[in-house]
């Protein structure tokens, strides 16, 4: 697939088929795409929890109001904030960690789309509850949850605003 087809063809999927996604593919989404995102100061302080256990998925759904469509897998993109601070100073945990996690999420979603998988990134979950469910240590903070699965319904493409760009000085 052409890169622009992948970028423009990706939709946020909020309804999935129950078919499971194989573990090799899920691993590849992280190791072949996610960790190849830019990382401020090459800190690579991100961490990725891949969740496929049905009971864990169910519990996470209960504390993640933005998570829709019963996905068969989740990739929880976390940051080790202690490591982020060590590498990026105070800007590390405050801003760079979020930016890095977001760029990793986009890589994962684009590669998933190229593989025929649907995804949706959400931030509408309770951080503390998710940490407790996944047994994450205090230093590992979840920033995004990416649902992964085979789409049952693909929403239509929203119109993109074009008046968002200018050249040189602000107009």
């Amino acid at each position, binding site marked *: 697939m052409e890169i622009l087809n992948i970028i423009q063809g990706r939709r*946020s999927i909020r309804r999935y088929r129950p078919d499971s996604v194989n573990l090799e593919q899920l691993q590849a989404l992280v190791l072949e795409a996610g960790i190849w995102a830019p990382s401020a100061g090459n800190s690579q302080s991100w961490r990725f929890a891949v969740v496929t256990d049905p009971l864990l998925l169910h519990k996470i759904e209960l504390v993640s109001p933005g998570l*829709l469509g019963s996905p068969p897998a989740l990739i929880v993109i976390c940051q080790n904030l202690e490591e982020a601070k060590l590498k990026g100073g105070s800007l590390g945990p405050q801003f760079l960690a979020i930016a890095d996690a977001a760029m990793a999420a986009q890589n994962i979603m684009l590669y998933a789309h190229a593989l025929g998988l649907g995804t949706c990134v959400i931030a509408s979950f309770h951080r503390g509850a998710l940490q407790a469910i996944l047994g994450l240590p205090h230093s590992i903070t979840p920033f995004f949850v990416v649902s992964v699965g085979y789409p049952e319904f693909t929403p239509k493409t929203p119109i993109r605003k074009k008046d968002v760009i200018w050249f040189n000085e602000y107009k």
Partner: protein
Amino acid sequence: MNINKDQRTKQIFQQLIELICYIIVSARNLLQESKLYGPLRMIEVAGKLTDILSCEGLDFPLLPVFREHIETAIDSVVEGEASFVANLDSLVSDVISILANIQKEGTL
């Protein structure tokens, strides 16, 4: 699957406890979220309640259509406020139809 009354009661209990968890977490998260997400979460809870009713065989003739319209409304929130509001209005029409079926208490 043949399950006895005790098991059914436990299942309903668990589903309702889970719904309470969902509502509480939603309430907390909504403090920081888009204002449209308030009505969205309420509609999602309505959907979850209709699912519980259906699972327990407590559904009524209008429920499947009502459930379908709830799903449409949930999907429409990403299309923008106008579409979401139109779908919520359509759901209110469903509610009016449901209310019209109530002749007296307990006769839905």
